[in-house]
């Protein structure tokens, strides 16, 4: 029986603590921009959706990469393979679509709530560029981390996703806040 209380707790605790510590870093960044957030509540409305989207994209990539590694379609060496290329291109196209969508829906929501009169084009462009930049950085991180764990003989499935969602929270918050401070 693999599902005993002790085993679940013992195997989950280290990852949970580590990702807790990483996300407290994201919290610190958010907290230090508290003045900006109270002045522009739009930031706090967009933030969960932005980091959720980055996290979602990266979990898809991570879980696809570990399946491909297990199936032997990708070898953990840093050179070009067709499968890896296609995954990367797909991720870039998905983030183009998703972040444009997030920008448009977000600026409609903010205008409806009467929070800010955002310039929809500028706002969407800002969300898109911030999103693409975050995706690029995290994709590199995901690939390196999955390869490293696979080479070490660990199953990337167990570690990459929890760690990755925390790291994408951190990087996502930093990049999003810096872009917002650029346009206001």
């Amino acid at each position, binding site marked *: 029986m693999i599902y005993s209380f002790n085993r679940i707790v013992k195997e989950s605790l280290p990852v949970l603590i580590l990702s807790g510590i990483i996300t407290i870093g994201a919290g*610190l960044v958010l907290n230090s921009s508290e003045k900006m957030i109270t002045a522009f509540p739009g930031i706090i409305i967009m933030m969960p959706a932005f980091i959720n989207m980055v996290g979602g994209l990266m979990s898809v990539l991570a879980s696809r990469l570990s399946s491909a590694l297990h199936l032997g*379609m990708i070898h953990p060496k840093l050179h070009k393979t067709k499968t890896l290329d296609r995954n990367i291109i797909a991720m870039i196209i998905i983030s183009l679509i998703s972040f444009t969508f997030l920008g448009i829906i977000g600026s409609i929501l903010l205008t409806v709530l009467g929070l800010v009169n955002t310039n929809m084009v500028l706002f969407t462009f800002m969300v898109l560029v911030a999103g693409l930049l975050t995706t690029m950085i995290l994709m590199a991180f995901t690939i390196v981390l999955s390869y490293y764990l696979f080479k070490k003989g660990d199953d990337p499935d167990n570690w990459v996703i929890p760690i990755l969602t925390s790291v994408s929270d951190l990087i996502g918050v930093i990049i999003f806040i810096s872009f917002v401070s650029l346009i206001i």
Partner: protein
Amino acid sequence: MAYVTNIKRIIEETTPFLLILTVIVLLSGGILSGVTEEFKIVPGLLILLPPLLDLRGNIGASLASRLSSAFHLGYMKPNKVTNCLKSNVYAAIFLSIVISFLLGLFSWLTCILLGTACISITTFVTISMITGIVSSSILTLLTILITQISFRRGLDPDNITAPSIGSIGDIVTIICFVLTIKLVLVWGMI
């Protein structure tokens, strides 16, 4: 199912779901904007937000994925409380108690070490634990429900439970966080 390498298919299967999730999470961001005044009055509160959001994902989504595997393996049957279900639920609740306590403690320690203005350690731990425990309990129930329903309908719970628990978790956690902050203010803990 074979591994999909067709770019068009990866995009088609991933995008719709991501877009629906985005709208849901945007709405929960709207709820959060209701407490921006409190963020001004209560220093340090924002530190807790990303870790608490992350907590539900890590505990809830892995519970969902364990329960779906257990269904496939036959360790669980719909409408029956098996030992496997019990130990999974107890572990999820136990983990959320321990981790939300540690999150409160670590956040407070980080504030003190960095010299950031913040509330007392009791308030930090209280907010973190109430939010963490209440939202985890709601999410654990929802996870069991969604897994059972999808399994009974002949759907693979793997494809449904973990992703939907992620975004439902964001909303539930944010509502619990907002209510806890209001409650703590009413109690006069700050």
